[in-house]
């Protein structure tokens, strides 16, 4: 069985769940059967003028139903097109792509910021399944409006930070961790670069393991074009320079191995 599948996926449902945030479920049996938390798919536009696939993280994988759930923000014309997809439409998809999260068997923070929140939901589900005895706390940082909160609460204890203080801790995810006196052995996180940089520093200070999901503008999505690289501490055995491919060796990296710009 090849690792990746490419083809037309049927839209099972789509709903708007926030300001510019869409919740799309696709029938993609082959992808659902082999995907894991932290991986992503490439979605292709119908509009021939939009030539590059859009990388979208997996929010939930339902192998039994053969479906994948994608929660994304409309950021440009490509994602605007996807937001118009309705039940029964088809969309071309390639995946699963990237490495996904690795499980450490230790108590963990699952931290999502903004549109980095969705992939942490599948991770929470898989951790509950694979490590039911370890403790996992979810910390979600929003600008203001919350989304997916009920889905996360179904997976365990959730702490919220909002920039405007409209819910939970006023501030960022680290403020929520401090305010609630939370501790853990491992950080898994996805979100904006300032948050990831702060978490990397926090993990170092507190001697925690830290795994960060990075994003970058991509072209091929499969590791051939070398568009989406990040700087690394050591020479990468594949590229033979201090660069790793986010779409291939990532998007999840040990914070210690990457240099965050």
């Amino acid at each position, binding site marked *: 069985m*090849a690792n990746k599948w490419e083809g037309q996926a049927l839209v099972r449902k789509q709903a708007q769940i926030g300001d510019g945030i869409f919740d799309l479920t696709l029938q993609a049996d082959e992808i659902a059967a082999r995907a894991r938390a932290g991986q992503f798919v490439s979605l292709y536009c119908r509009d021939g003028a*939009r*030539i*590059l696939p859009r990388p979208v993280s997996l929010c939930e994988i339902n192998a039994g139903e053969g479906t994948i759930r994608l929660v994304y923000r409309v950021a440009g014309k490509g994602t605007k097109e996807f937001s118009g997809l309705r039940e029964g439409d088809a969309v071309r998809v390639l995946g699963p792509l990237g490495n996904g999260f690795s499980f450490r068997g230790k108590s963990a923070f699952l931290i999502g910021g903004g549109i980095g929140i969705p992939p942490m939901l599948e991770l929470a589900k898989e951790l509950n399944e694979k490590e039911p005895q370890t403790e996992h706390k979810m910390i979600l940082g929003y600008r203001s409006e919350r989304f997916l909160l009920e889905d996360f609460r179904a997976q365990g204890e959730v702490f919220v930070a909002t920039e405007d203080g409209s819910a939970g801790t006023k501030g960022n995810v680290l403020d929520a961790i401090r305010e609630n006196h939370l501790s853990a052995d491992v950080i898994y996180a996805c979100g904006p670069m300032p948050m990831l940089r702060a978490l990397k520093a926090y993990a170092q200070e507190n001697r925690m393991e830290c795994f960060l999901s990075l994003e970058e503008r991509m*072209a*091929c999505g*499969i590791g*051939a*074009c070398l568009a989406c*690289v990040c700087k690394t501490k050591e020479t990468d055995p594949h590229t033979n320079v201090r660069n790793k491919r986010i779409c291939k060796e990532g998007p999840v990296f040990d914070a210690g191995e990457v240099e965050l710009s």
Partner: protein
Amino acid sequence: MNKNPDRNMEKAAVNTSVQICGITFKNPVMTASGTFGSGEEYSELVDLNRLGAVVTKGVANVPWPGNPTPRVAEVYGGMLNAVGLQNPGIELFCKRDIPFLRRFDTRIIVNVCGKSAADYCEVVERLANEPVDMLEINISCPNVKEGGIAFGQDPKAVEAITSEVKKRAAQPVIMKLSPNVTDITEIARAAEAGGADALSLINTLTGMKIDIERRTFVLANKTGGLSGPAIHPIAVRMVYQVAQTVSLPIIGMGGIVTAEDAIEMILAGATAVSVGTANFMDVHAAEKAADGIEDYLRRHGIADVRELVGALL
């Protein structure tokens, strides 16, 4: 993978193979350098045996780290890239990438980049005893400060680098030309005078994309090379002009997405074509172009693809 025997019989009736410098390619469709790596990543999804050749991503004498990110930006009908020729260097390439490609029934064309004539020559000499079919010399990359396009915009420099490389090359030499020049035929003539065995054209056109919300450049490098369907008519025109000017075989590229695009290029004078950015649009683009050319020949009752080469000249 059509098992219909009638269709297979029809397939036997048309010839899709072409010859360049005495080397036979099973069909005229190649992958354009830089869009396909050395084929490994695509091989999971694409049958490399169905391609006329794999043209590898540019390789230098030593590893190059490339440019800062963002390295790509989408534009209407195309994309800009400023990857900056990141590559693992010729040693790892010879150890890993060539043996990988040898497992497939396709031709291997190695794209060579450098910052100086000595760099190009070092790579070409290192490849002399390697089992590769042709060399494509990249004198047209717009995204690196030294080498690349600096060699490709001055006819005297083009002639000089071509003859330096030719002296050392064990395989036929293709010079890859830049469209970022006033008169591409002048550059083509210079490559021919330097002893080139074939020409590839076109590389990307230098462009720029500005993010008006952030009021900044989208690419970290500010400028990047424009590729994709938007540049196809320019590439067809340049292939046509160059085909009228020199007697060298031409590998045509620039915005080829479909078999129809490839056939335009062949009619304009290209013996073979490369599919590049279209690989990002559809991982099967090159395979589909190869199949589509065969269908076109059958549909028009043409027995041999070579009848189409330069038919409009």
